[in-house]
């Protein structure tokens, strides 16, 4: 037994060694991520939800926006798996199509926020000086205002909130926190010797930012962006729930739950609001698991091999 394990051990080590060669730190992080069971579970769940939203037309025949006043607040039946809402729209169809809106808003708002935050933070952290001062004071002001109230105020002033507008409003109010993270990372990178080394070979600012700063700051950016996506889905749901978000008849999980503001629906039609509620919970949880997994994967100290 002893001799067998002794023989096996070096062989395994050698394959490990060959395997490990030529892996960039990013690839190593991804491998660490793949070994995180909770994060993979989150990824699988999220993929399923994304698939359901993409293939929604195949999963249901109903138009989620088509009202049918003859079929108001129906109990679940073979025709309507989750019943119908107060306007006679099919709840199951709304649940599926609603995921499209929630995910689109979560993802695009995150992407847009990251874009603004990255540019602002990069400029601020790289150039410093007066530009840095101006950008940081702007973030101070935006951060001093409560995010939800600010976004709600802007939306209240607008006549009709479209999805595109909603995304822009979220991005405009949410970028400062990401800009600060990027700036902080850039400030610490600026003092590193390899950046001086890049200057010494005559690299331009753009090259230093894109080839040296961003690859080294990508970890915190990805982690925060992922967690931000979860909070943006929650934010959209919350606003839609209180009627400040995407207006009816467009289905979103948030405005589906808002049906439950009616005490009758709350009490006698749990099938109308529990599924969207659970969907929000599961989606946010899945994304947060992924975010946590990424955080561990990008933190070299978490590498316990």
């Amino acid at each position: 037994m002893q001799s067998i394990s002794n023989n096996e051990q070096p062989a395994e080590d050698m394959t490990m060694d060959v395997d490990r060669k030529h892996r960039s730190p990013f690839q190593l992080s991804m491998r660490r991520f793949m070994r995180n069971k909770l994060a993979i579970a989150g990824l699988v769940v999220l993929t399923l939800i994304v698939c359901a939203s993409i293939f929604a037309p195949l999963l249901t025949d109903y138009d989620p926006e088509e009202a049918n006043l003859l079929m108001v607040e129906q109990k679940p039946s073979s025709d309507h798996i989750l019943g119908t809402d107060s306007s006679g729209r099919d709840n199951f169809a709304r649940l599926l199509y609603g995921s499209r809106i929630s995910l689109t808003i979560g993802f695009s708002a995150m992407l847009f926020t990251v874009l603004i935050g990255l540019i602002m933070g990069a400029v601020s952290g790289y150039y410093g000086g007066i530009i840095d001062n101006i950008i940081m004071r702007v973030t101070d002001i935006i951060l001093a205002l409560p995010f939800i109230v600010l976004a709600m105020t802007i939306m209240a002033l607008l006549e009709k909130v479209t999805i595109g507008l909603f995304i822009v409003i979220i991005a405009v109010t949410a970028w400062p926190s990401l800009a600060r993270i990027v700036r902080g990372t850039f400030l610490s990178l600026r003092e590193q010797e390899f950046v001086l080394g890049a200057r010494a070979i005559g690299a331009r600012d753009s090259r230093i930012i894109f080839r040296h700063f961003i690859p080294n700051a990508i970890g915190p950016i990805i982690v925060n962006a992922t967690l931000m996506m979860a909070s943006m889905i929650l934010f959209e749901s919350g606003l839609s729930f209180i009627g400040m978000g995407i207006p009816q008849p467009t289905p979103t999980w948030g405005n589906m739950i808002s049906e439950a503001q009616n005490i009758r629906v709350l009490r006698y039609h749990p099938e109308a609001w529990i599924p969207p509620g659970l969907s929000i919970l599961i989606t946010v949880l899945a994304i947060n698991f992924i975010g946590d997994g990424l955080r561990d994967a990008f933190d070299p100290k978490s590498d316990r091999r």
Partner: protein
Amino acid sequence: MTLKTTESSQFEATKEVEKEILIDVQNVKKYFPIKGGVLKRTIGHLKAVDDVSFTIYKGETLGIVGESGSGKSTLGRLLIRLLDPTEGKILFQEADITHLTQRQVRPYRQDMQIVFQDPFASLNSKMSVEQLIEEPLIVQGRLDRNQRKARILEIIEKVGLRPSDRQKYPHEFSGGQRQRISIARALVLKPKFVICDEPVSALDVSIQAQVLNLMKDLQDEFGLTYLFIAHDLSVVKHISERVAVMYLGRLAEIAPKNRLYENPLHPYTKALLSSIPVIDLDEDASKVKREKIKLSGDLPSPANPPSGCTFRTRCPQAHERCAIDRPELREIEEDHFVACHLYDNK
């Protein structure tokens, strides 16, 4: 003894013939502003490099020695314009590069490179060895893709790495190996002048000699000129032809290596030399020659240096004049410069 003199005179004779100035440093100063108060106004200056002049000849190695905080790294970075000098003039091959913008300096970067101290911090960990070594070539943009690949292979072999290492990442290497990557990165442009900013002080002693020998070999092969920065005299002795001693942003002494090690003039140099631990088998002789000079106190703050001679606060031979007059660097013997009032009469 006779052998030695002939050797050194021969050496000097050959140098006389090809003494071509590569870098001329004239009264260079670098003051970092110290900001304070609510309005961040400049309330003082940190004199990192204070009025330093010297020349570096083509093909030689000039060692610069000093304690941490003496301004030697700052000086190195000034010479290749990673920092902007406050005052003075820097001539590279007779071209004034003192006030060039970063864009204007870019073509000169081909000819002057730097190897940093910390091989873990000076390489971008997200880039493979090939990307790291290729980057200078891409930035300078003189070669096409195939020429670049060929050049990388050539330099990788020269610094003692294997061609298969190209696809690896810095985290897969030891400190010594990483320093070889740094050297390859610096030399791939075929520069004329390389600043070695304590390239071996972060390495294990057993690796130090390897890397130093590699640098020496590469110098011979490519005809490089080195400015070799170190904090102790023993490493510098191995590689330099001339040695300069820096103290608090100023040059204390500069001389050919043998002259400096055998006949140091400045009290600071003497103290530094006496602090090198040696295993001397001939005990009696060593007792006579080497008296241990201990320096008391710490390096004074470069923000508030002592008046007159900056070394006077720790100098065992300080007298009244040292507090009043700042000693200038003067040539006491041929090629032997010292900034000390003890030699005023010579």
